[in-house]
Every structure is written in C-alpha cells, then in structure tokens.
C-alpha cells in the first residue's frame, strides 16, 4: 500500500510490507544510515529518531505507524554541513568516541531539551537511561547536555569561530577531528556498508553446550525462496580451523590440532562432528535477503546427540568431567608456573599473618552496542579476496587468514575495517565468520554479508575474564607483605582464541603484585577448556584480574591485622627511588610516585574525615563504604623480542608512513586502528607539533591493508599512542631530517647549518633569506630536478618504533558507596581517580578513556555477568539479562592526572586506553565490603546485585543473631537506626559472630528486605 511521510522535511512515499520496522525503512529504503541498530528490543536507543518531534525508538515502531507523520533523523538536524547546538556541545565536550551511539544520543537529547530547557543533572541522567553507552561512561555526555542547554539559551551567539590552539599542540585538548561526521551520522560502520550484488548470510549455531552431530539435513532450507545455498563443514574442503598464535614455549601444553602443523588449532569455521558450546557454528545459509536467510535457517534439521557438559573451569579438571578435545587430557590446556614457588612457600610458612581467599572475577562480555559483521567478496578474474569487517587488527588478521585458514597468498587478500563502534577488546580477534564470508563469496560468486544481532552476540563473540584464583598472602602484623602465592584458573571456553592463551601467565601472572614491592610472589596459570564460549581479552584484560586480586587481598590483609587499608598500601608500595623496579615476575616498572597518587586520591575524598558522612548515611538507613583500588598496569605492547620470548608469533612494533604531498599537505598512515580512542586527533597533534603544519593539512589513514604500510599491528593493550604514536613521531623526525638535507643542498651549506622550523626549513645564518616552506621542499623533492648525490626523490618516510620495554601507567582510585540497609542496593555516590599516563597529548581524550574504563569497571562490579546453566545453556543474551551500566547509575567522576614521563619512549607517553579499568572493580567491591564490615562480611563475589548483598547480610546477621542469643525476633521490628549502637565495636574480630546485639538486629531488618532500588 502506498504511504507517505515527511522525512527530514521532505515528503517521501513508500510501499513496504506492514512488518517493516521504521528503522529498516529509514536505513534500507531511504538510505539514511545515520540511525543505528543496537539491540532491537527497545533498550539501547541507538535507533532513536524524532517522530512528530518526539524521540522514539525506531526499532519498536512499524513503518506503517509513521504514515503521514514527520520523521527527523540525525541527517535532518540543523543546516547541511553545520552542527546544531546539541551536536556542537557533544563535540566540544568530547562526548563522542567511537560515534556509533552518538546519533541516537543526539536525537534523544534534542527532544529532552525541547521539552525541558533547564534539566538538572539527575533529570539528564534519568533521561539518558533510554540510551545505552559503553565507552563514555556518560560523563562527557552529561556535560554536553548541560553545555547544549546553555548554548540553546544564547540564540546563535554560541556559533563561534573554530578554536585556534596557541602554543604547543601536544598537550592541548583539541576537539576530536573525527567527531563532526559522527555527529551528523555520516560515518559508515559495517552495517552501513553495501556492495553491488551483495547477498546475505545467516549462521546456524549450536543450541547445545555439548553434542555430537549425527547428521544435517539442509534440503528443505535449500528449497526455500531466495536461498542461494546452504553449506556445512562437508562443503568447506581444505579450509582450516582458526590458528592460535600465542603459546608459551617453555611449558607443556595441549591443544586441538591445526592441519598446518605449525600452530595449535581453534574453532572450525563450521563444526564437523561435534559442537562444544552454545554458539558453535554449524551451517550457513546464503540468500537474497536477510529475512530469507533467517527463514531458511529455521528449516535446517540437525540431528544432535546431546552430551554432558561442563561450564566451570575447576569442575572441568575433575576426572569425571566431560572431555572436550581428544588431544587435551582432563581439559587442561596448560599449567604454567611463574616465580619462585619454594621461596613463596617458605615465606608463607614463616609469616605472622596468612590470609587465604578465593577471588572470583566473573565472566563478562564486551557487549558493545555495535555488534559484529563481515562482508566477503571475491574477484574471479584476479583471484583477489576482500574482507570488510569491524575488527581491530586488519593486518594481523589478513596474515592469519591467508596463511592458516584459507591458504591463499598474502597479496591476494585485502582486509578493510570500516568505522568500529567500539570494541572493548572483543573485536580484536580473528573470528570464524570473517573467513567464512570470504569462502562463501567465492562459492556463490557474489559478495556475502553477515551481520550479528544482539541476541546472537554472546554466541558469536568471545567473552572475557572468568578467572578464579586461590590466593595466599603472607605478611607481618605491622603491615609488611612478604609473599603472595596464587593458583589461577582461566576458563578458556570451548576453543583457544588466537592470542588468549598467552595472556593468563603474562598479563595476569606478571601483574599480580600490583603497585607493591612483594619479595616472594608466585603465580600458577591453569588454562582450562569448558563448554562455554571462548574467552579472551576484554578492556583491561589480564591486568584487571591481577589488580582485582591483589587489591582485594590487601583489604583482606588490612582487615586481618586491623590496619587502615590505605596504610597497608602506603607501607608496601614501590617507592619513587626504586625505579627501574623489577617486580620479580617479569615486569620492569619504569617511573612514578605510587604513594603520591594514593595520597592525592585520599585527599580528594577527604579520607580522614569520613565519620560525619558515615553517620549521616546511617541516619538515612544507608551504610557508607569507602574502597581503594591502586594499580600499575603494563601498557605499550610491546618490545617484540620480549613478546617473542613469551611465545607470541607476531611483531609488536609500531609503524607509520608519512608522505608530504607536493602541495604541502601531510598524509599519514598509521599502524594503529582507532575505534574510539581519537587517534586521528592525537596523531595529528603529534604531526602538527613536530612538523609545524596546521591540523587541517593532516590526513590520517588507517584500517585498510592496502595502505602505505605493508604490515602493521593495531590498537590494543593501551599501545596506540606509546608505540604507534611514537612511530609517527619517529617518521616526523625522518621527514625533518630529509627536508634539512635537501635544503642544505639547495642552500649550498652544511646540513648542520639548516634548521627545521614550523613547516619550513631555514639556514641558521640567514633565516629570512635561506628559507623554504615545507611545501617547497616537498615539491622540489618530488620533482627531483636538483637532488644531492644519493638523495632519493620525494618527501616521505616510514617510521618504526619497537620499544625497549613496556611502560607502566599507575594510579589510585577511590569509590564511595552507600548500601541501602533495607534493600541491599548499592549506590555509587562518589568516584575519584588519580591516574598517571606519563606525557599526555590530548588531556580530554585521555580523560574520556578513563571515563569509559570506570563505567565498565562499575558495571562489572555491580551488574554484569554471563551465566550458563549446568547443561551449558546460555542465560544472558539481551541487555535486560546482561545489564550494562546506565547514566543514572553513575555519578560524575572526579579525575586528577599527574605526569611522570616514561623513559621508555621519546614522547614520555604511557598507555591510557584500558589501564585505568583494573582498579575500578576492586575499588567498588572494597567499598561495599567496607560498608558491611561491621556485619563481619569481608568478601563478596561480583556482581554485587541487591540479592547477593541481601543474602550476605542475611547470613551474616543470622550468625550475629545466633551469637547474641535470642535476638532473632528483633528483626521484624528493627528500625533502620537499630544498628548504629552496636556497629562501632563490631567487625574487628572479622568472624561471623562479631555482630553485637545492635548490628544483629539491623542485619535482620536488612535481611528482611532484599533486592532492589526503590524510587
């Protein structure tokens, strides 16, 4: 039926099936792809548009419902090429990182401010709850809304000329260069990429945690409308499973095989005779439309024989456990020791105090609002394959697919990453779907696209963490730690993911001493296969597990010896005069003032002065708790030789190409792969600083293997600026050097007499006469009419940087929480973070990274957990079952940065991308434990959902009630203030009976009211 609506002011007609959603009409029929899809269940708000001027989620609205209405999408805001006040405020406040959720946020905020021009922070946050965000921590978004409200009141006067940076470019918070196009919805993500003749794939995944496949009948599916082909493992021929490329070589390890014989094997593109987790790929349909492919998927009949499953790492090691791989006895991939066990054991045996604890870092997932996707294409005439996919490392993936999966020449495969809607680590792998699309493209002779959905995401994309550690910490009564011994268990899931198996010993093991000088550390990494999704890095990876462990143990130890946890930290921290400091496990800490950062953070929260706050909370029926998370996190991966010695089959150096165009502009190709870290901005700043050219003259290219760099690494492990950025810096030096040499030739003077100034070269003896602009130098070099002997034409350079050592950002975070005595609900009331990332190129960019790290850590501490039942069924596959933190659940963050340059690179910059995540979860958990300490509660497992806390309070108070003899009935009548009397003296003994009469009754009252936030 013919219908019409007004789209961005223009009347458009449409004739679609009634089941077409408004978002699909906008994106597919009208090609306005600025409106994004993140969840399809009305939770994420990425699809927000204005319908009749009001914000609605266009994935919840039928196209037909908009008949006759006016619809405004991000493309319809403001004048063409300009930004509205809201968009400008987002830009100014650095509220944009990867940009995927930005259009939805902008639309939503536009509606908010049109009906409430003066919202309070609470109103802003509550409104923003309709938009999920995974990377900004909402901090700058809230600031942007406040700023936009001010701008809107100023009429047009906010439209000022673009800012001009006076003085140094490095160190200036210039606005992110990548943001304006994101704010206008012009940035293309994988969902927005369409190729001529493209068809669509849908992947059938195992619904069982563990089963054998007795047969697959695809005939009915193949006969369905629009279906081009249905494929199973039997069709794939010589295609190999995914390889594993980080394998410690000094310990025994067991793996699924890989036909190359060169590396261990991972997941197969399509399962052959057995599926090992819910999500294992079983078959694939290619059809003309997504809908047809999905419909046909339902018609594939798989004859499964369900097998017993095991989902827990320690359970999987038991003799009776189901076995996953023939080549891996007892499901144990490896057991890798690190450090001197005998020394640690001896120190523990000799210690005055020994604290033992099992520390669980639950399974989480990145669950980025942008899911994943891949498009394969194949040119039959040339034999060239091209893969478009939103992964972080295009070059490494090209190498792995060419060499180990498809077995095609490296130069026959090109990999391109469109804009990436954040990764949080989980878009950093080689996935089975990418090469599968390449194979399919060749098989069906057309480009093939696969796009993931929210509910399939946890089945298609590796999870993270899932680390259990049995830790023993030993020390003296006066607070000096002498040993830390840990048995760690990493749940690898069903298959090893390319780089994940190397991480537990290196990134967790080496990091377990945290910021402390511990004489006798020992770590044992046990890597175990189970019937769960494969696991790998999630933002903060490895170091997050380690810091969580040590920071929880420090608090446990402090509780045990009755010392202030801050004091225990101060006593044991590595001191400023100890650098370079060898942590006895492989790291060589570079520089810093760890106790200084701790003291600054404590000062910011008024640590010594919290009694009044505690009493005030208590009067309101809340318990206040303060928690500290101090950290050192290795960053800047990495020195290639060191990484090689740890078994990583990949160079980890940085690289950059710089070409000065004959017309004077600067083209840079970086080995980094921005996906929210604003490297286009920060790398431009480095170039602008070094070469003295304006930002607008600089173009940064990346994320395409057909670029100026033949091979490169990518962005991960907080390496971009301190490794790839240094390569850019180094390339600038080569450019300057060549410019000077050429100028010296033209000026007929020695090179020493020529200096490089801002975008020019000049002879020191005649700076105004013997001077050429950078453009003139480049032009004459490209012409090559008059070159010195041996001088090559052109002005271009490749810079490399292989760091001599890692760098080590550090800091201390402090969380203040209030736990509701009646509901068990935790509210984060303040969050203070002191970080040191060395020299900082763009402070606002760096702070924005910290905001994201904090939000993720708070989410892990309070909400997030991937859950399986004992059969291996996945229980968390939506944003309602896997909640991520929303705006109203966070306070504004209070950040302070100190600057201690690293000696390990010429910029002095340390990593900043994920390093400030590790202290967050422990700070929050320590705070909650502090709040409940007088009930005798010393440990709680994340996520700290109300019912977890309620159960803890309830069993603690049950113990307390029993201990205090017959006060159990006090619970029902107990009022909120009942606990205050007994709480002061309680807790010191740390046992369950510590609760005196007063706290027992408070506990019982609290126990009577579990689960929830009341509004």
């Amino acid at each position, binding site marked *: 039926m013919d219908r019409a609506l007004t789209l961005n002011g223009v009347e458009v007609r449409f004739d679609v099936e009634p089941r077409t959603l408004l978002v699909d009409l906008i994106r597919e029929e009208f090609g306005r792809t600025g409106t994004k899809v993140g969840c399809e269940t009305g939770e994420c708000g990425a699809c927000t548009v204005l319908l009749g001027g009001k914000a609605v989620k266009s994935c*919840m*609205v039928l196209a*037909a419902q908009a*008949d006759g209405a006016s619809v405004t999408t991000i493309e319809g805001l403001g004048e063409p090429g300009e930004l509205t006040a809201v968009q400008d405020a987002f830009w100014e406040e650095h509220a944009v990182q990867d940009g995927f959720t930005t259009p939805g946020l902008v639309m939503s905020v536009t509606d908010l401010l049109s009906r409430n021009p003066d919202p309070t922070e609470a109103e802003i946050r509550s409104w923003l709850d309709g938009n999920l965000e995974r990377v900004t921590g909402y901090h700058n978004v809230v600031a942007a809304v406040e700023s936009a409200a001010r701008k809107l009141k100023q009429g047009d006067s906010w439209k000022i000329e673009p800012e001009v940076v006076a003085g140094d470019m490095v160190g200036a918070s210039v606005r992110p260069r990548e943001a304006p196009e994101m704010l206008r919805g012009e940035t293309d993500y994988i969902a927005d990429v369409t190729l001529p003749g493209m068809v669509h794939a849908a992947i059938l995944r195992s619904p069982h945690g563990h089963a054998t496949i007795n047969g697959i009948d695809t005939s009915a599916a193949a006969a369905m409308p629009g279906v081009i082909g249905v494929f199973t493992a039997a069709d794939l021929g010589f295609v190999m499973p995914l390889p594993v490329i980080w394998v410690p070589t000094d310990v025994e390890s067991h793996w699924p095989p890989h036909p190359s014989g060169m590396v261990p094997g991972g997941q197969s593109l399509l399962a052959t005779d057995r599926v090992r987790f819910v999500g294992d790929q079983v078959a694939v349909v290619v059809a003309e439309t997504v809908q047809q492919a999905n419909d046909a998927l339902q018609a594939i009949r798989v004859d499964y024989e369900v097998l017993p499953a095991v989902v827990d790492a320690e359970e999987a090691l038991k003799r009776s456990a189901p076995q996953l791989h023939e080549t891996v006895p007892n499901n144990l991939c490896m057991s890798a020791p690190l450090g001197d066990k005998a020394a640690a054991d001896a120190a523990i045996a000799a210690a005055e105090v020994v604290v033992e604890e099992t520390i669980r870092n639950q399974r989480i997932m990145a669950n980025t609002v942008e899911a994943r996707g891949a498009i394969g294409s194949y040119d039959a005439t040339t034999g060239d394959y091209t893969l478009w996919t939103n992964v972080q490392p295009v070059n490494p993936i090209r190498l792995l697919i060419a060499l180990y999966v498809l077995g095609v020449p490296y130069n026959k495969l090109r990999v391109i990453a469109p804009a990436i809607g954040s990764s949080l680590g989980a878009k950093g792998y080689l996935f089975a779907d990418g090469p599968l699309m390449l194979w399919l493209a060749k098989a069906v002779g057309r480009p093939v696209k696969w796009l993931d959905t929210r509910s399939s995401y946890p089945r298609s994309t590796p999870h993270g963490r899932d680390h259990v550690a049995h830790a023993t910490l030993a020390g003296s009564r006066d607070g000096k730690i002498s040993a830390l011994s840990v048995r760690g268990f990493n749940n690898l899931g069903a298959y090893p993911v390319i780089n994940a198996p190397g991480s537990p010993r290196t990134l967790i093991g080496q990091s377990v001493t945290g910021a402390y000088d511990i004489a006798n550390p020992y770590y044992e990494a046990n890597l175990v296969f189970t019937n769960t999704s494969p696991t790998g890095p999630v933002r903060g990876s490895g170091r997050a597990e380690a810091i969580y462990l040590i920071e929880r143990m420090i608090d446990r130890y402090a509780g045990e010896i009755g010392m202030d946890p801050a004091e225990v930290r101060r006593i044991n921290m590595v001191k400023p005069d100890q650098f370079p400091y060898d942590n006895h496990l492989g790291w060589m800490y570079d520089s810093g003032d760890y106790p200084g950062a701790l003291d600054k953070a404590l000062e910011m929260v008024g640590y010594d002065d919290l009694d009044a706050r505690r009493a005030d909370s208590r009067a309101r029926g809340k318990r206040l708790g303060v928690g500290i998370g101090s950290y050192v996190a290795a960053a800047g991966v990495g020195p290639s030789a060191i990484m090689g010695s740890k078994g990583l089959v990949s160079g980890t150096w940085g690289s950059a190409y710089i070409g000065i165009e004959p017309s004077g502009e600067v083209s840079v190709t970086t080995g980094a792969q921005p996906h929210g870290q604003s490297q286009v901005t920060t790398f431009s700043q480095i170039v602008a600083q070094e070469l003295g050219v304006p930002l607008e003259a600089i173009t940064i290219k990346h994320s395409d293997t057909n670029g100026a760099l033949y091979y490169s690494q990518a962005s991960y492990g907080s390496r971009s600026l301190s490794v790839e950025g240094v390569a850019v810096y180094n390339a600038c030096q080569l450019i300057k050097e060549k410019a000077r040499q050429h100028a010296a030739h033209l000026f007929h003077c020695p090179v020493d007499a020529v200096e490089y100034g801002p975008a020019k070269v000049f002879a020191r003896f005649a700076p105004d006469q013997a001077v050429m602009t950078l453009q003139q130098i480049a032009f004459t070099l490209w012409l090559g009419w008059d070159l010195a002997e041996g001088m090559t034409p052109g002005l271009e350079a490749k810079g490399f940087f292989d760091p001599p050592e890692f760098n080590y950002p550090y800091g201390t975070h402090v969380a203040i929480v209030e736990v509701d005595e009646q509901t068990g609900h935790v509210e984060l009331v303040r969050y203070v973070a002191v970080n040191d990332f060395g020299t900082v190129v763009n402070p606002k960019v760096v702070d924005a990274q910290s905001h994201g790290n904090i939000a993720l850590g708070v989410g892990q501490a309070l909400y997030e957990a991937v859950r399986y039942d004992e059969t291996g069924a996945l229980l968390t596959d939506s944003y309602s079952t896997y*909640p991520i933190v929303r705006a*109203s659940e966070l306070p504004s963050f209070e950040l302070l940065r100190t600057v201690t340059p690293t000696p390990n690179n010429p910029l002095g910059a340390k990593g900043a991308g994920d390093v400030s995540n590790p202290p967050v979860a422990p700070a929050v958990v320590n705070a909650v434990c502090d709040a409940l300490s007088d009930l005798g509660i010393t440990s709680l497992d994340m996520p700290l*959902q109300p019912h977890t806390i309620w159960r803890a309070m309830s069993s603690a108070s049950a113990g307390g009630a029993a201990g205090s003899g017959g006060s159990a009935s006090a619970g029902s009548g107990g009022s909120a203030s009942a606990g205050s009397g007994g709480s002061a003296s309680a807790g010191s003994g740390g046992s369950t009976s510590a609760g005196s009469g007063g706290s027992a009754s408070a506990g019982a009252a609290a126990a009577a009211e579990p689960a929830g936030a009341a509004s």
Partner: protein
Amino acid sequence: MKEFGYERPAHPTDALAMIAGVAGARFLGGGTNLVDLMKLGVETPAVLIDVTALPYDFVTDDADGGLRVGSGTRNSDLAAHLAVRRRYPALAQAVLAGASGQLRNMATVGGNLLQRTRCPYFQDVTKPCNKRVPDSGCPARDGEHHNLAILGGSDLCIATNPSDMAVALAAFDAVVFVEEPAGPRAVPIADFYRLPADEPQRETTLEPGALITAVALPALPWAANSRYRKARERASYSFAIGSVAVALDVADGMVRDVRIALGAVAPIPWRAYRAEQSLRGQPATEVAFREAADAELEWAQPLRDNRYKVPLVRNLMVRTLIELVQAS
C-alpha cells in the same frame, strides 16, 4: 515477524467493524509491547488496527471533579499533564517509573493497560506456558519465578501484571470505558483484570474485540497526597520487583481514609483492601502501618525464590505511608 495487515481507521465505528470482521485482528496502540511480542513470535496477529488516529488523545476535566484520560494519550503526555501531577501525583510518578523516555513517548494509556506479563516463559515460544498455549504447563512454578506472583496466582499461572500505571489507577478506583460488540461499558478497574484461576489466557473481563476509549479518575481531593514507590533490581529503569501506590487522608494523627495498591506481586494490580480496612480510623503510626501491611501479606503464598517480596513490599508500604504522613 510473520506477515500481517495494517489499518489505521479514523473513526471508532470503523475500528470496531474491522476488528469484528477479521479473525486474528488486534488493536495497536504505540506498539511498544505488541510489536516486541510479534518479534518474539509470541503474538501473531493477522491484522493490526492502529487506534492512534481515533479521537482518544485527550486529558479533560470531568463534571464531577474527576479527570478523564483518552486511551490514545501517550504515556509521556499523561505523566507531564499538570492536572495529573497536581491531583493524582502517584499516577504521574508511576508512569515515569516505567520504561524510558523514548518508549513513553510512543506508549499509549490503552496499550499500557493491556501490556502482557514479563514472565520469561511467556516470552519464549520454545517453552511451555499455560497463558500462551493453554494446557501446555507452567514451568515457572518450579523454575524461574523470582519476579512472579505471591498473591492471587493459581496452579496454572503465577505471572505478574507488569504495568506501573495500572497500580496507580487501581488505587484511585479508575473506571475504564470500553466499546464492546454489545455496546459501550464502563468497567471499574477492580473488575477490569481477572485472576488466572483456570483460564490464565484470559487476563481481563473484556469481550474479544473490545476497544478501550478512555479512563476516568473519579474526584478524590486527598489523592493529591499520594505517592508511587517502586523497587527494582537496579537504579535505572526496569520492571518492578515490587511497587506500591498509596493515597492517604490523615487528620489529627488519625487515618481518615487510605488507598493502597500493590504492583509486581499478583497477576493483577493488587488493591490492598485488607490493609486499608485495618487502617481506617486508626492512628497514623508505624506500628499501625506494619500491622496493616501484615494484614494484607498474611495471605501471601510465596514460592521458593520470591519470598523476598513479602518483606520487600511490606517495607515499601510502611515507608510510603510514613512519608505521606510526613508530607501531609
């Protein structure tokens, strides 16, 4: 989603004719619940009759001093309406406590009243469920029921009604106006929803094809002293695990009159008549409030994993009553 037809009549008579004329036809409000369930395959209507073009988008004063709300009024407009905020604050608060801004902009009063349960089995077509497929069984009783009913359930179904708005409407004795094949009818909210008993698939007393046209809020001057409180598993929006709408008329320390309705505890918005009864004429004290709450919750029949709701709701009731005493 399965294919279906779509109509958007401008006149109620057309809407009623259409729904009577096509088997499997369903009314569509904002679609925020129905379209969601269609994506899941739980609902498979043959035709959707969009009722948002009908003349039901209004909030007007009734002659008797009450307020009348058209069924097509969007939830955000209802919550923002000055008369609602002043005279029936618990209703505005209840609506604002549900979903997110973008969804409230779309959702209608009629659709909100008829939104379906969030029982996980009801929403999962691969699982049995008596409400979705009569006589298929109820896996919730022994399975995942931590947010299901402690009051009013039956052996066949223990699902809860998820609406926040309906809880406030129950407290205010709202009247729902409907057009049924037999003609118009005014249904007091107390008679609007029905307990599952042996027919969990029937959630209201409406005849098939009934069209909700408006909701009347009777005059109740002391409703200005009312409040909605909602407990949920997190600080930002999500469905209630327990909620309460309370209006309190208190003078000289005595409860003159009181209205209490509970949410997320029963298959219907649960009017706490017993608690109200025990409070009228009593001193407005915490002790009396606790006793009143106990009088209601004494009848609760919690299951293994939803016992927590009893103390949770008890405390919500007591806390809210105390706040209303302080506010008046």
